[in-house]
Structure formats: C-alpha cells, structure tokens
C-alpha cells in the first residue's frame, strides 16, 4: 500500500482523496485497530453508533484493538488502523510512529487527528500560560507546545474530517478500503449540501454568519437545516477562499475579533483557517 504521505487540509487537488494503488493488499479478514490520542472519544463513538452496520463491519474485519468497545486485544500488525486524536505530548509522538509501523493502512478520523482539534487553540498562545491557569501542579504536565495532526508526524493514507466524523462517511471509507476502491468523500462546500437538500441559506435569508462556503461538506447538513450557520466542523473545503468570506463578514458588521473567533474552533489548526484567523489578530 502506498502510504503517500500528507493529505493535508491545505490540499487543493481534486484527487485529494487518493490513496495510492487500487489493490491494497489487505488480508482475507483484515484486522482493524482503533487508536486514541488527544481527543474526546466522540469519533470513536461514531463508530459504535453505527450499531447494525457495525455488526456487518465486524463480520468483514477482525476488530483487533478497540478499547472503547472491548478489552480484548490482538497483537499487530494491523491491516487498517483508525486513529483518533492529535499529537499533543511527547509520548503521543512516539506511539504514533509505532502504530504506523504496525499498520498497512492508516486512516485518521476527526478534527483532532486531521487538524489538531480544539486543543490546537494553544498553538496561538503560550502553553505555559494555559498550564499554570488550569493545573494546581503544572510541573506534573508533560505536553508539547502545540497540538498537531497525525499527518505532521507519520504518513497518512486517508484523512476523514469532522468534529465528530459522520458515521456514514466512516462506513463509506471502510467500505471503500475493503472493496479496493476510492472513497466517495466530497471535498466541495457545505453549500452544495444545503442546496441539494433544499435548505434555505441562513446567511442570505437571515443574515446569520456561516462558514459553509469555505467548509467541506460531510455532516449531512446539520446546522443550516436547524437555522444555524455552519461552524466549520469538517474543516476547509478544497480551494477555500476564506479572505473573501471574512471581508463579507466584516461588511455585515462582524468585528475583527469575532471574525478571528469563527475561524478558531475545532479546525483552528487547519492551514486555511489558521491563516485567516491570524490575519485578524
């Protein structure tokens, strides 16, 4: 399997989903492992949330390591590793290298693993300030100065976005890898989903600020269909024009501070959102 390296947030290639060669050389009943790094477990829960479909998955793969679901552990190597969470401690950095060595295919899931997560907010400040503000004994804390996506540390075969990920997309990615095909995970805007669903645009019809035009679709149209603007959970879309949208927000009366903040949430560390927020410092 060609672990063809970073499939980063700043990608602008229509083939951003590509994962090397077609036949991925997985075994008859591939071994699946699910790993956790710095994260809230929400993405792993999406896998558990698959319920019926999970049983179908469990028939096709051997769930070799998934602490959230079972204590049983099967030794590596693994055919597919799903990795949740960001790298935020020196220990994380060592562990991910070991997992990469043991995994034929490594798929990162969720905003933490693909962009550093909400904890990447610390990348904009000083770690020491946060630690001393939060912990009584800061000297017990061994953390890295920044929270970074897995792809900054090891080659990643596919990045599945979302905070949390969408279970249908997760099943689609597993399905695609098991059937040796390219996953159908679009990289276009959330607006495409709104329009296909017939959701009335909240920005145009109500003046609600919305990150949809710069955010990758994938959630299944959650917020705009509930009368809310998109929060950008799925990170920057292909060729995101954040500066034009930010300029428009400004014309609509949003302050520089608020513009900075809308780009600084779950995907604050994703290249396009990071750059945009920094230009409103």
């Amino acid at each position, binding site marked *: 399997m060609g672990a063809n390296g970073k499939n980063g947030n700043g990608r*602008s*290639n*229509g*083939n951003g989903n590509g994962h090397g060669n077609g036949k991925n050389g997985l075994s008859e009943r591939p071994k699946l492992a699910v790993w956790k790094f710095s994260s809230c477990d929400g993405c792993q829960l999406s896998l558990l949330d698959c319920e019926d*479909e999970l049983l*179908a*998955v469990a028939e*096709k793969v051997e769930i070799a390591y998934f602490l959230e679901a079972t204590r049983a552990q099967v030794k590596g190597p693994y055919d597919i590793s799903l990795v949740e969470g960001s790298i935020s401690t020196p220990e994380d950095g060592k562990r991910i290298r070991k997992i990469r060595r043991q995994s034929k295919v490594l798929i990162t899931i969720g905003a933490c693993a693909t962009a550093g997560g909400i904890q990447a907010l610390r990348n904009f400040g000083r770690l020491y300030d946060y630690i001393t503000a939060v912990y009584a004994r800061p000297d017990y804390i061994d953390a890295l100065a920044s929270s970074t996506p897995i792809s900054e540390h090891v080659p990643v075969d596919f990045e599945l976005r979302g905070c949390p990920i969408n279970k249908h997309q997760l*099943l*689609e990615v*597993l*399905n695609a890898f*098991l*059937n040796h*095909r390219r996953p*159908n995970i*679009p*990289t*276009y*805007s959330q*607006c*495409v989903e709104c*329009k*296909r*669903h*017939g*959701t*009335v*645009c909240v*920005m*145009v*019809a*109500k003046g609600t600020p*919305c990150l*949809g*035009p*710069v955010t990758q679709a994938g959630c299944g149209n959650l917020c705009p269909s509930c*009368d809310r603007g998109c929060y950008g959970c799925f990170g920057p879309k*292909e*060729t*995101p*024009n954040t500066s*034009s*949208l930010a*300029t*428009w927000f400004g014309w609509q009366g949003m302050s520089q501070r608020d513009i900075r903040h809308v780009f600084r949430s779950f995907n604050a560390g994703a290249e396009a959102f990071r750059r945009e927020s920094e230009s409103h410092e």
Partner: protein
Amino acid sequence: MVSRKGKTNGDAAAAAGAGTMERAVIDRDGLDALIAALQDDGYQVTGPAVRDGAIVPGRLATGADLPMGWTDSQSGGHYRLEQGDPDRMFDYVVGPQSWKASLYPAEQLLFTARRGEHGFTVDEPRIDAPRLAFFGVRPCDLAAIRTLDTVFEGGPFTDTRYQVRREGVFIVAVNCARSADTCFCASMGTGPKAAGGYDLALTEITAEGRTRFLIEAGSERARPILANLPQQPAGAKDVEAAETAVAKAAKAQTRAMVPEVEALLKRNLESPHWDQVGKRCLNCSNCTLVCPTCFCSTVEDRTSLDGHEAERRRRWDSCFTMDFSYVHGGSIRRESSSRYRQWMTHKLATWHDQFGMSGCVGCGRCIAWCPVGIDITEEARAIADSEGRK
C-alpha cells in the same frame, strides 16, 4: 424555442383572440376553485409557500396556503421576506428554489446492481412521478423550463427521467406586477409577462381597492378548467390594468444585462477582470445550484460492504467544484477565476453555440443567493467597461 410534440400547452399566441373562453377575471375564490379543479383532475399542486424565511415551492392544498401579503427584498447576497400589502397575493418574486428540483431532482437513483452466480443483474427503478401542476410559475422560470426542455429533450438524446416528470405538467403562470432589485428579465426578453408555454396565466390587478386576477388560457386543456371557475368576463379595463401592472414591473427593474453579451464575453476570455472576480468568488457553487437552468450532474457509485450489491446515483454538480474538471492527473480549472469564467461564459455565451439560446433567463437568483453578492450583470458590465478603457 423547442416545440414540445404531443403536448397541449402551446403558446399564448395560439390562444389569443380565439373563442370566448380564453380570458376572464376571477377573485380569490376563483384561485381556490382552480386549485380544487386541478386536484380533481389528479394533479398534485405545487406552488409558492413560506418556509424558513423564503418563498419556496410547497404543496398547495387550498388557496389559503398561498403566501398572501408577503413581499421580498433582494439584492446581492441578500434576501428578506417582508410584510407587504395584506391584500396582494403575488407581490414576491422568485426564491432560492426553482421548478428544476421537481423536473430534475437533486438526487436520483439510476440503477442498482446485484452480483449473482453468473455475472450480475441490473435493476432500474421505476420513476413514480406524480402528475404535477406548477402553480405560480414566473415568466423567467417559464423560460427556464423551456431551456431545460431543450437541454434534456431537444438534442439527439432524450433524458427519459426528465421526460417522464415533465410530461403532462400543468403550468399556471403568474405575470409579475412587481420586480425585485435582482430581476433583469426585461433585458433578457423573458418577462415580466409570460410569452406562452403555459396552460393558464394569472395577472394580479387591483381596481377600486379590490384585488382580482386576470386569467388567460394558453392551451386547449386549460379551457374547460377556466370555463368552470367562478368568474366575470374580462373587460378592456381589466386587460389594460394587467398590461399596466406588468409594464410597471418592467420599468422598475434596476438591473439589466449589457447588450450583445455573447460576443462581448467571447472576445474577452483573457480579460484581467476574471482575476478580480476570482478573488471574491468563494467557488461555493451556490449560483449554479440556484440557477433554474444549470443542469450539470455527477454520478456516484456505491457498493455494499460485502461487495455483492452496488448502486449508481446521479446528483446535481457544479462547474465550481474541483472534481468537475478533474481528468487523470488533476483538475483543469484550478483557479477560482477560471471556474467563474466557465460559469459565466457558459450561461451567456457558449450556451448559444450549444443550444441556440441564452442559458440565463434573468431571474436574478445567482445574485441574491451568492453568499458574497457577486452579480452577473455587474460583472458583464465591468468587462464591457474595461473594453472602453483599453
């Protein structure tokens, strides 16, 4: 203009001046009776409804479901529903959805396939389209339906799914007595008065403080329906009131497409202006998806986990996505400017080469529903102005 063979909704010209039953004046109870008559004939009646702060097509059970008293305010990147004259029925214009969604749904299952012992079998789902009556089709949208007819049925290949849905659609048009700031149908020659292609056309007229409707038949099958509505004969004054209302709407239009835009764009493919608009464009695809004539789609194949079943779905696509121009090795239109240029030149210039007509009907949706208010008429004008400066 395509002729729809075997269809009864011919053009208004054919109806004009013929017989006695092509024109009358009805009140609000006449609208109720019309909706009821269509339902009795087996039509599912779809028309303007208020939902989530906009006028969108919805199911009409009675005339009381119509958004009476509403109007809209529209400009670049802006749409608001507002309270208007409480007695007026049609003082809003087009909203974010068009009839396209009914004729050519955003997602269609094309086929399913199942692996068997010897190869695989393919099943095509039957199209269970209800008989639809479109109630309240504005003249620009009527032109858009004509455009879709040309695209899907006018060439050597017919899109049968479109054909099945389109066949027999009963159209009740509404001429516009009010334009939004985004409308420019007058400059595109598509409105604000319908020039045929409908079964019935309504024009709202207010005379002596009373709101009434001039109703005109445009097809043979509409005549008996019209004949059975509670009505009064249409006098010369009513016809004149309708003409005046429509003329007022045309005059009120603040936007217009620059003349001879087809040639203008064709000789400006390398204009530096494309880069300027490219900087503002989000390539979010909204303009294409709200456009009543944009017809591009993509197909997606899915397999079941065990690989025994597969399906192919067709979905609306847009020339603003990277995937749209993806060929082996990468996407051809990588720059935002080249994607915007593709969209605008197709709508206004190369559509003529392809279909012998403009791809734009001047409905103004792409202006209002662009999240950053990019305006196709302004962009065309900017290119024309830049020529003057050379």
